[in-house]
């Protein structure tokens, strides 16, 4: 029997970047196949190609043995491929049935035939064991139910192959359980499911086989029954990277950053950071390990001041900054390397020298009192360019023109040259090439030797283990373990991150 999906040598290039490099993937009919990889590994690009949202530059796609080329999602739908996006695409003010038929409404004499639609919906629901009330309004449904509507919507259109893009990201644990039950039922009824995720425990639980993608390449396809979370973590992160060794300890006893009993709630009132306390000393790098979505982003947002904490205190060099504005914190010596440089780190359309000033625009050499100091900003940026090896024709090009690695070096450079007392570095080497990565590690190490206190958050376990003096593990909003990086390998760390080590069954 021909596999449901077969991708051979899929390659996709963006200017200066190879997002997918000779990807091979075979998904058998009727299985749940997980695609694993870090953010930026190329999973989403691959799925967009498979769903016809972007054309591949090279490679062959076969669906049920037939070679296909998709120029739009409609072509993919016609071949029986459906996608459930991470961010649900439903009209809140419309009913379930209206959402399901949206875009392919059955009509009778020019009028929407709701009876036929409902009959078909019920049929689909029966066939796959999914139940929804077609007359419920979307905004009255829980997130998990909304997701079920999305799945039904795809099945309603005759999809035999479902792509689910990080479906658990928005769900609470009970909803995840329910989703998994639904998926198992779908599989029993003959559907093929491609499941994108980076939560290893979930992947192991639900899938039959797993393909790991790293840096745009397929690393391996393994049977879920034959691997552990630790194996997967190793495959995802890889081992051929230059090792980010820190060298001799420079940790002092001066507390530079102290977070005490910090609790942050999300919009739904859930404690997304739950009573967290930590201390970072001068000359210390404190690594925070955790699978994404366990509260790390909210923790740093609360420390930087872009998200209000509910309770708890934050002290920098003995000063309470809990109620200070972002600017006061930055001026007080808080450096910040955001996790998403395009969203929080850069003004893409502004020249480099203005980007270098961002976050430091109230201080010399970027400004003199009320006025922007243009010559000062330019020469400072020029210095960053030389010292941090930012490859650019000059400091007047817009940040958009630089490659990701050079953008990141610019950000690291502007934070380091401002000589912060505390640095919050979130995924400082995410999505940049190996050379730039080594540069960034060097800079962080050097600053550490000079007494910088760094709070490091990373999904790259080698980076965490190699750079950190101490590692704390964040799980469901709480710090659940404090580990010595000298005595731990990625596999063990991975089992702490998934909570497996905590239950004692790693």
């Amino acid at each position, binding site marked *: 029997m021909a596999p449901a999906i077969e991708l051979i040598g899929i390659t996709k290039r963006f200017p200066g970047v190879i997002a997918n490099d000779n990807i091979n993937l075979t998904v058998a009919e009727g299985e749940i196949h997980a695609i694993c990889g870090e953010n930026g590994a190329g999973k989403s690009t691959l799925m967009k190609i498979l769903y016809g949202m972007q054309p591949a530059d090279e490679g062959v796609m076969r669906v049920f043995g037939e070679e296909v080329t998709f120029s739009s999602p409609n072509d993919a739908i016609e071949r029986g491929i459906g996608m459930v996006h991470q961010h649900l695409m439903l009209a809140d003010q419309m009913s379930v049935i209206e959402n399901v038929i949206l875009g392919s409404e059955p009509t009778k004499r020019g009028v929407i035939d709701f009876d036929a639609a409902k009959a078909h919906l019920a049929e689909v629901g029966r066939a796959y064991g999914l139940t929804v009330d077609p007359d419920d309004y979307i905004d009255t449904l829980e997130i998990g139910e909304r997701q079920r509507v999305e799945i039904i919507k795809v099945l309603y259109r005759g999809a035999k192959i479902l792509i689910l893009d990080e479906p658990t990201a928005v769900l609470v644990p009970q909803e995840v359980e329910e989703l998994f039950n639904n998926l198992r039922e779908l599989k029993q009824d003959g559907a093929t499911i491609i499941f994108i995720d980076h939560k290893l425990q979930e992947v192991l639980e639900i899938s039959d086989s797993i393909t790991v993608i790293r840096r745009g390449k397929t690393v391996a396809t393994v049977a879920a029954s034959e691997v552990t979370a630790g194996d997967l973590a190793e495959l995802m992160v890889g081992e051929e990277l230059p090792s980010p060794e820190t060298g001799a300890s420079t940790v002092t006893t001066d507390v530079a950053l102290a977070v005490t009993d910090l609790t942050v709630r999300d919009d739904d009132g859930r404690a997304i950071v739950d009573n967290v306390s930590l201390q970072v000393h001068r000359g210390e790098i404190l690594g925070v390990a955790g699978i994404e979505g366990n509260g790390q982003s909210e923790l740093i947002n609360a420390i930087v001041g872009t998200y209000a904490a509910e309770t708890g205190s934050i002290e920098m060099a003995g000063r309470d900054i809990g109620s200070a*504005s972002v600017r006061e914190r930055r001026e007080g010596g808080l450096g910040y390397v955001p996790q998403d440089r395009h969203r*929080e780190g850069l003004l893409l359309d502004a020249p480099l020298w203005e980007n270098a000033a961002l*976050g430091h625009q109230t201080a010399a050499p970027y400004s003199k009192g009320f006025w*922007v100091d243009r010559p000062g900003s330019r020469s400072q940026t020029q210095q960053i360019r030389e010292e941090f090896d930012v490859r650019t024709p000059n400091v007047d090009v817009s940040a958009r023109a630089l490659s990701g690695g050079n953008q990141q070096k610019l950000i690291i450079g502007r934070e380091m040259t401002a000589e912060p007392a505390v640095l919050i570095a979130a995924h400082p080497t995410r*999505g940049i090439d190996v050379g730039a990565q080594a540069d960034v590690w060097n800079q962080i190490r050097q600053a550490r030797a000079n007494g910088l206190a760094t709070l490091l958050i990373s999904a790259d376990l080698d980076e965490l283990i190699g750079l950190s003096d101490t590692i704390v593990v964040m799980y469901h909003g709480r710090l659940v373990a404090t580990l010595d990086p000298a005595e731990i390998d990625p596999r063990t760390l991975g089992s702490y991150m998934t909570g497996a080590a905590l239950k004692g069954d790693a």
Partner: protein
Amino acid sequence: MTNPLVRRIGLALAAPALAAVFAVVVSAIVLELSGSNSIDTFGTILSNGFQLETFVDTLNRATPLFLAGVAAAIGFRMNLFNIGVEGQYILAAFAAAVVGAELNRFALPGFLHTLAIVATAMFVGAVWAGLSGLLKVTRGINEVISTIMLNFVATGGIVAALLPKVITDPTAPNQGTETIAERAWLPDLNGVAEVVTREIGRGRELTGVFLIAVVVAIAYHVGVNRTVFGFDLRSSGMNPFAAFAGGVQPKKMVFLSMVLSGVVAGLVGMPEILSDNHAYDQGFVQGLGFGGIAIALLGRNSALGMTFAALLFGFLDSSSAVLQVQASASAEIVRIMQATFLLAAVVAFEFVNRIRQRDEVARASAATETPNGPTPSIEGASA
């Protein structure tokens, strides 16, 4: 590729040039279709344009348009769409005219009288725009909606309700507030202009507000480009998340930029109050606020760009008056030219912008290929 500098300058000029050609062609077609001679009509516009009096008229018309453009641009720089310049300037001018008339009864030096009028206008404009800013910051109400609504409240509500109460002469053909005493009028600038030109024909006085507009232009340019506040403003407009992480308080910036936008909007009605009519009456000039939005779009929110845009629109408005007198073609052809020019320019700007971005990426990646440097490799481009 040709010399990169030449190419960049060429690109900068290409957009407005293309838009102008397009606007002329479209209007020529409309003229011919409506039975007028397009060559004659353009000839009339041009020959009129070379007269000194037309130039003065153009400056007079460009002055309030430019001010309205700056008012809109302050918001645009922050991605705030202040549609309310219209209501802000009309309400401000009305309040200024009332205050100006009241002050007739007091013995004050002329400059204080003038100052009080201008300050009132700026203050009322600021309050009216600030109201939308406040609604956005505290209640999350979209400024487009609140400013449009407040336009109606200002013009159809407050001014329409209060104007009858301040009318002094119910028999006058054009009823309005009492004329402001002459001591508060701004002197015209003909004397200054005539230093370099011949004598300007009677009935054409260059408004003193022109000088205020020059000051606003400089303040706007310097404020936006050279001050920390301007940097905060622009960075919030370009990327509010990055600006926030960089210490810019988004709510404060929204409120402040709306207030500043309103301050400048308050000045838009000043030529009428201080130079022209010296009163607010039923025939008070309307529509400048919306004109200002066009000026800001066309001038790409830059002081220099908006100066050219305001001069162009002012000139075309002035031509419209001439066409009306000569009756060789419909005066509305000018509106068509303005609209097609604006539309074409916005499209052309975007087009040129893309070419420019592509050029820049090419140059930057050329710089990456330094002899010792590796070529850029795989990256997380899952976006």
